[in-house]
């Protein structure tokens, strides 16, 4: 059991406005954790800080034991909410790209998963449907043998059948040494697979708890609790 994410008094302000205030989070290995919160709650800011795309204003953040940098990036697999891939590349080219930069990338696994979807390696990303492009992005991330997977809205904008596929892929890829952090709005689809949930609002962590414990204590599903907690 190792700590894969540790935030201590993490604060990030843009100009004078704080997007994250004194955030304290510890994520242990072997968990699937949901990061839930309304728009503008600081989820994206937290995710960018984890990935080294932003620097903290104060406080500290440690990812897989390293401050965000080259060493942490080797161990983090990030799926942003919008496609960041060069569409002129073919599937094979993007797989080779990932192989080149990530030592932990498993190309056979990637090709296997894509074959099951009927996506040929020669296809250009441009030619794929939106749903298939999202699946390819997920496959690339899941084919990495990372310690921390950060998925930003992996099932938003995707049809229900594709959501099932994505959820199955996440489960199939489960590694007790690693942790998956899923940031999403679509709670009811995803709550069954979560170990823990972090509720975040206005830059503060409102709650971090085991999901079954929440159900036990509140007699409600996560979806219902979310609606209550974040009621306007």
């Amino acid at each position: 059991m190792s700590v894969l994410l540790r935030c201590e008094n993490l604060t990030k302000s843009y100009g004078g406005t704080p997007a994250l205030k004194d955030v304290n989070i510890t994520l242990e290995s072997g968990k699937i954790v949901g990061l839930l919160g309304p728009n503008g709650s600081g989820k994206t800011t937290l995710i960018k800080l984890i990935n080294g795309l932003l620097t903290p204003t104060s406080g500290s953040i440690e990812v897989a034991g390293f401050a965000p940098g080259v060493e942490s990036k080797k161990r983090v697999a990030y799926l942003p909410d919008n496609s960041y891939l060069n569409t002129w590349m073919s599937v094979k080219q993007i797989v080779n790209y990932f192989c080149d930069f990530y030592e932990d990338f498993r190309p056979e696994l990637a090709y296997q998963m894509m074959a099951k979807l009927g996506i040929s390696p020669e296809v250009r990303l441009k030619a794929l449907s939106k749903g298939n492009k999202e699946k390819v992005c997920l496959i690339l991330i899941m084919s990495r043998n990372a310690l921390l997977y950060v998925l930003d809205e992996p099932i938003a904008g995707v049809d229900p059948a594709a959501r099932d596929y994505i959820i199955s892929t996440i489960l199939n890829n489960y590694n007790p040494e690693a942790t998956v952090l899923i940031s999403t709005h679509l709670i009811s689809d995803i709550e069954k697979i979560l170990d823990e949930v972090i509720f975040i609002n206005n830059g503060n962590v409102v709650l971090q708890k085991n999901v079954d414990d929440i159900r036990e204590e509140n007699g409600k599903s996560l979806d219902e609790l979310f609606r209550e907690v974040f009621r306007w």
Partner: protein
Amino acid sequence: MVKKLFKHEFAAYFRLMLPVEVAVLGIGIITRIIMLFENDSIIFKISGVSVWILMVLATFAGSLAMLIFAVMRYYKNLFSYEGYLSFTLPVTPAQHIIVKSVTAVVLDFIATIIAVISLCIAASGNLLTESVKAGVYLVQKLFETFNNTHLVFYIVEIALVLILGSFEKLFLYYACISIGQTAKKHRVLMAVVAYFVYDMIVWVLTTIFQIIFTVTTIAAPEFCEKVAVFITNHAYASVHTALSGIIIFEILFIALCFVISHTIIRKKLNLE
């Protein structure tokens, strides 16, 4: 990792450069073909001149294209949606900047060579042999007039000035783009503004220097004469000093732009 970055940077450029260079070479070949029909007719005079204008335009366009590619690669690969991939690679910002700039300068050089080849193709035959003969004659005269050792050093220094000049121009654009990224909105516009500000500063400084220079010549003519005599007496040293001075200035400028870009990326990055 740096090797891999280079590999992919070159691959990305290749995709962009290929159509342009094919066009440049193609126009060279077409020019040559048209020149085959050399005669005194009006048709030839018009098409001959047109095609040569086209040839020259093509070489300029090719050069401009390389500049556009270099700026585009920096901006698009690091600050558009691609930035989400680039900056989550296990690569430092310094490595990104260095790989991009070196690739850009090297390929610009190759593009220049291709342009020269294209011109040679266009001019092949009498025109080419005459040009080459003239060039060789010039070089011989140069070696006769100047002392050999100094000339070699001059060549090295001038080469450095030119190479560093390419880097200098590129790093200026990098710094402007990076400065633009610190704004919340209209980042491209802010980059352009940064460039204008730089231009203004250069203009102000140049004007100040010109004023100082003019005033000195007027107010202290004996001093200026002494300086002029000194330079004439130590001609070689003076040129070396001047060239070295330019090189040092270029290096400092490149370092400044690099520090600006690097710091902004490391501390102030905020992708959309």
